[in-house]
């Protein structure tokens, strides 16, 4: 009964979503056709979609997309691995936690974009410089989540581990890390979106190969339909990243109350 109702609600939401997108494209088309904005700056939706279709059939586009995806995923992976390793150590050693607290509070809010000149100074106009920018904010995002997660171990669960003779490594592997996992995954989901924004930004500003640089090239050409088509691609990429992160969350946290409730619906 409820699952039928939920399925119907899901269907209605999907239909609404499609209607929304069609409405948006139609409005875009009409505004562009009305000529209030020059075609040089605002191509019609149909021109843009045709152009997007053409991009999708050229190998060059896929190479550029691959560049962006590689920079993004490498940056995110470095940030997550480093943040989990360092966060676990700092979170488990009260002395380190106190010693690093004020530095973390100072470094964390520095916008990644402000790191760009520094990165270029250190690594030149290169993919390495872009990686430094992509790693920075996602690292702090996950690091802080790991600290919270590691501190959240239930006292009864900890007493259980101690009384049943679990050593340090077994406690880490079977108690501390699983407790921190929901925090880490939330951090990674947010970090994945931030890393994508930073990847595109770095490509725009530093000029390392990828969608960001291609957007800038189309702007200077000028090639408005190409530029708009690639902006749509970045949006699509963002949606894919978010969907993938949600799916991973549901798989890894199948035991967690938040996911259990969802599954019970």
């Amino acid at each position, binding site marked *: 009964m409820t699952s039928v109702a939920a399925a119907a609600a899901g269907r209605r939401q999907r239909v609404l979503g499609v209607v929304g997108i069609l409405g948006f494209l139609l409005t875009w088309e009409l505004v562009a056709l009305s000529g209030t904005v020059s075609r040089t700056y605002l191509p019609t939706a149909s021109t843009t979609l045709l152009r997007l279709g053409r991009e999708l059939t050229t190998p060059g586009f896929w190479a550029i997309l691959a560049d962006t995806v590689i920079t993004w995923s490498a940056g995110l992976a470095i940030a997550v691995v480093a943040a989990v390793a360092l966060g676990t150590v700092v979170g488990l050693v009260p002395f380190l936690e106190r010693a690093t607290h004020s530095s973390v509070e100072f470094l964390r809010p520095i916008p990644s974009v402000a790191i760009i000149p520094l990165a270029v100074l250190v690594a030149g106009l290169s993919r390495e410089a872009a990686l430094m920018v992509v790693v920075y904010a996602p690292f702090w995002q996950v690091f802080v989540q790991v600290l919270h997660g590691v501190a959240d171990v*239930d006292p*009864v*669960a900890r*007493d*259980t581990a*101690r*009384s*049943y*003779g*679990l*050593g340090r490594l*077994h406690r880490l592997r*079977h*108690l501390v890390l*699983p407790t921190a*996992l929901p925090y880490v995954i939330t951090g990674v989901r947010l970090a994945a979106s931030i890393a994508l924004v930073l990847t595109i930004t770095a490509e725009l500003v530093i000029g390392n190969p990828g969608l960001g640089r291609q957007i800038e090239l189309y702007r200077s050409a000028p090639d408005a339909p190409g530029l708009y088509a690639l902006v749509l691609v970045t949006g699509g990429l963002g949606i894919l990243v978010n969907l993938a992160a949600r799916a991973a969350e549901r798989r890894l946290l199948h*035991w*967690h*109350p938040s996911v*259990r409730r969802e599954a019970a619906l």
Partner: protein
Amino acid sequence: MADTTHEKPSETRSGALLSVRDLGKTYAVGSGEVEAIRSISFDVRAGELVCIVGPSGCGKTTLLKCLSGLLAPTAGSVALDGQTVLAPPKKMAVVFQEYGRSLYPWLSVQDNVGLPLKARGVPRGERDDTVRAALEEVGLGHALTAFPWQLSGGMQQRVAIARAIAYEPEVLVMDEPFAAVDAQTRADLEDLVRRVWQDLGVTVLFVTHDIDESVYLGERVLVLSSSPTVVQEDLSVDLPAERDQISTRALPQFTELRTHVHEQIQRAKRGDRAGLPA
């Protein structure tokens, strides 16, 4: 499993397996102090089933944490097999009151039960056999791959008991394990504890605030006073070894014993202390 436990004569010279001497625990709270336990002394011989009964907040959990090496006492000492307890002893398994927090939701039932064995380095095959046997002992042989949160409260506490059994302890310590389950389930679990005690020959320390439960289960009942806590009375229970929820509870001795324990607790509340040293 049962045989090896039976064959191990672990009595010390004094005959006590577990020895609690002048145990006191005062918590430091902010700038002040809370005296949870004033002074508790008792001995438990190997193979005994002792119930510890006392009103809520009298320090039962504190006492168990000190016994099991999870908490350092502020006075006195605990010895197991003649050795002072300073850290959780390998020979002791604890069943906690909060089963929902004591079982790990990310592990299946069999992984929860097997985790302490894994940590001890028991090889895979042997571990699986021990885990299955322990779960069958508590009537959960069918739930190996379930997750704890898919089970009822009573079943979760059975899993926790299976984990303790699989650990093959000499002393099984239980902290109000059935306080949060319904009456029928509770009766079944009480009988399970007596059966485990008889089958495995372990020494059992069972803490409860329920007077009837303490008399029904125990071979001996330690009555604690209210806080600051001392042993109000050490009572031997002369009920038949085979107990039955209906007939045992209807026996005149049962009624006498529970009335007696009840009066002791009332006396303790009035501050009429039996065991208090001068």
